[in-house]
């Protein structure tokens, strides 16, 4: 559905996107991850034909986004960052206007708008001015706009930013619904969201792709592995001893009354829980708790996009 080949974008001397390539197959939901300024939005702007690439190419459903821009744009629904809308229009009026622009057949406009309104639960506010709506509703109007012409591909740039947890949940549900028969490329900061929704994750940092895999595989293969937390009655010497075990990167210590909490950061696939337990038993440190914490996508994200890489 999306094919990006050696795409680069420079703003003057600043390289926003540096020679990236990736593919998105039909039916996939791909999470586009990266810190602010990593090049996510720039890539999306190129894909939607808003900006030209400096070099390389991208195509949507086989249509080059620059050479055959109109054809490519017909096939995608785009929700730009911050959801720009005409605040002086009413919700249904805006959606009708957009449906016309996007080439929905004249007789089908009402139907298409009705469906989009239904899908995004906008029935209550369809006659309201967009300027009078809350951010959550505006976000949904943006989504309704993106899908009013029933595109095969949805490109959503941070659809949940600035929403409260309830709104995030409802937008997430909505996107999950939409994704059933569409391809979706979604950029976000919210990592649990990606774990829940996306079939694949592309991590981008400083204009380069750092990883492209399923969330599961990323967790399995990545260096940002787990932690082991031990609460025990032990003196400061325990820190050194724990630190000497193979696979332990570092140890953090926190005093909690009689007990001390040791947090061991581990290498990938290292599991020292048994060894640590035996060590504590040998030294007669009374252990109150020993918890193995698996790496989360957040750990992987931090590891991959840590700026010193």
């Amino acid at each position: 559905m999306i094919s990006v080949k050696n795409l680069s974008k420079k703003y003057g001397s600043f390289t926003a996107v540096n020679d990236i390539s990736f593919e998105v197959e039909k039916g996939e939901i791909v999470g586009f991850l990266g810190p602010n300024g990593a090049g996510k939005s720039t890539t999306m702007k190129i894909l939607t034909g808003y900006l030209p690439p400096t070099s390389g190419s991208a195509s949507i459903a086989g249509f080059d986004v620059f050479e055959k821009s109109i054809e490519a744009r017909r096939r995608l629904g785009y929700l730009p960052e911050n959801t720009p809308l005409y605040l002086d229009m009413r919700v249904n009026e805006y959606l009708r206007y957009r449906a016309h622009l996007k080439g929905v057949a004249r007789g089908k406009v009402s139907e298409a708008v009705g469906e989009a309104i239904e899908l995004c639960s906008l029935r209550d506010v369809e006659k309201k001015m967009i300027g009078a709506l809350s951010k959550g509703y505006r976000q949904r109007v943006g989504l309704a706009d993106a899908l009013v012409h029933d595109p095969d591909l949805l490109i959503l740039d941070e659809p949940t930013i600035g929403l409260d947890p309830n709104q995030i949940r409802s937008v997430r549900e909505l996107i999950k619904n939409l994704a059933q028969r569409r391809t979706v490329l979604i950029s976000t900061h919210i990592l649990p969201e990606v774990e829940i929704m996306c079939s694949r994750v592309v991590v981008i940092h400083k204009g380069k792709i750092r990883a492209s895999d399923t969330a599961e595989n990323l967790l399995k293969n990545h260096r940002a592995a787990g932690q082991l937390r031990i609460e025990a009655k032990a003196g400061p010497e325990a820190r050194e001893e724990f630190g000497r075990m193979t696979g332990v990167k570092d140890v953090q210590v926190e005093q909690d009354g009689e007990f001390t909490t040791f947090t061991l950061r581990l290498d990938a696939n290292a599991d020292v829980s048994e060894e640590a337990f035996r060590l504590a038993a040998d030294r007669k440190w009374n252990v109150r708790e020993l918890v193995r914490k698996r790496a989360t996508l957040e750990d992987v994200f931090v590891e991959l996009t840590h700026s010193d890489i």
Partner: protein
Amino acid sequence: MRTLFHLTAREVKSFFYSPIAYVMLVIFLALNGVAFYYAVQTLTKIPADESVVFVTFFSPFFVWPFILIMPLLTMRVFADEFRMGTIESLTTAPVKDWQVVMAKFFGALVFYIVLFIPTYCYFFFYKWFTGIPAAFAAGPYWGSALLLLLAGMFFISMGCLASALNREQINAAAMSLVMTVLFIFLAALPDFFVGKNEEETKWLTHFIGYISFFEHLPTFCRGIIDTRPIVFYLSLTALFLFITHHVFQARKWKS
């Protein structure tokens, strides 16, 4: 065609959504009313060989609002889209850039025409209220309408360019005001050469006479449809729209 229609419809509506539009309509109408009042007064006191249409449109109560209204008409057309970010949703829909530019132009033009409709009714209202036919013929009436339409197209295309070049409305307004004023007052240029060798400045006077709005106005207000200004305004409108299109497209130039 359908896309262009819907884009234009949205532009026209957006004018009438803002209260400023109504303020503009009222003030413009009131000042034109004053211009018309003085025109009738003048013609009653000093009978002249001019139509009331000509005297009305030559009044400062018409000329100044006419100049000032141009930047107000066009300042927001592109600048607002850029400022609000809606340019992104607009240009990522399957619409062509020239369609956007033409829609902006036609939208402002429609509002411009609406702005003039009440003024053109004045000439008839006079007869209704006084029972005396106002002193004008069909020639000056339609001639002046044609010229105002042509000049309006030209000034609007200039304003569209200013708006496309600026992110802030106020800058766009200032820029198009400067361009409008410069163009309008080109007519005054030969006055600076009064007393100089007339042979030497003849070409300038001739040239200004060809392009000056204040040279065209009397001609058309007498009902003379001169084709030269028509070609002049149409071609300049096309030129400015062409430049606007390219400025608007500049974001797509590969860097």
